[in-house]
């Protein structure tokens, strides 16, 4: 089950990418663990997570077509 992960702002410097696809990720907690393993400096970064454009704070189940976004602090305007 592929999960699409969109990356924004300063996090693109850490992940060196604007988008990733990961498989076999059951929920957002599992996603965070996997990302921190692959990109250790991500663990110290401030960001929120959105699943299908809704920000999530509690652990959230990911489904086949879930789109996850990693959102560092906003700085528009």
């Amino acid at each position, binding site marked *: 089950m592929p999960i699409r992960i969109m990356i*924004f702002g*300063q996090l693109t410097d850490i992940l060196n990418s604007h988008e990733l696809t990961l498989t076999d990720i059951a929920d957002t907690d599992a996603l965070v663990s996997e990302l921190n393993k692959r990109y250790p400096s991500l663990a110290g970064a401030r960001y929120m997570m*959105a699943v299908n*454009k809704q920000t999530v704070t509690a652990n959230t189940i990911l489904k086949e077509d879930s789109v996850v*976004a990693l*959102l560092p602090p*906003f*700085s*528009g*305007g």
Partner: protein
Amino acid sequence: MKERKPKNIFVQGPVATSFIAESIQKHSTQTSIGGHSIFLGQVRADLINDKKVAAIEYTTYEEMALEKMHAIREDIFSKYELTCMHVYHSLGKVVAGEISLFVFTSSPHRKAAIHACEETVERLKAELPVWGKELFDDESYQWKENSQTL
């Protein structure tokens, strides 16, 4: 009258002053309007560790930003007696001194226009997934962070 479908707020590059003038001019036929309030965000040439900000490059998570902006718009219209609201935000590079944000509210009464404009600016700064990358004149950069208090 008050059509409030999700609409695009993003423009490529700076907001031109001629565009602002045209937007104002279009409202002259709306003779129930008594006051317009406008906020313009301008890119500052801040000095950070002896390096000067030459421009800001904006990116967004567009689908999410437009949904958020739609929700903000709905909230503001339900709270204030507004005739209309227009919001434009730059994407891509905006040079210091140029306009990157244009928020424009109109109402029969000045207080509604003024307070709706202020609240819209505060909310979009806090809630829209938009990121500014401050480009220095030596081609290095840093990621901007919005202050909630200033």
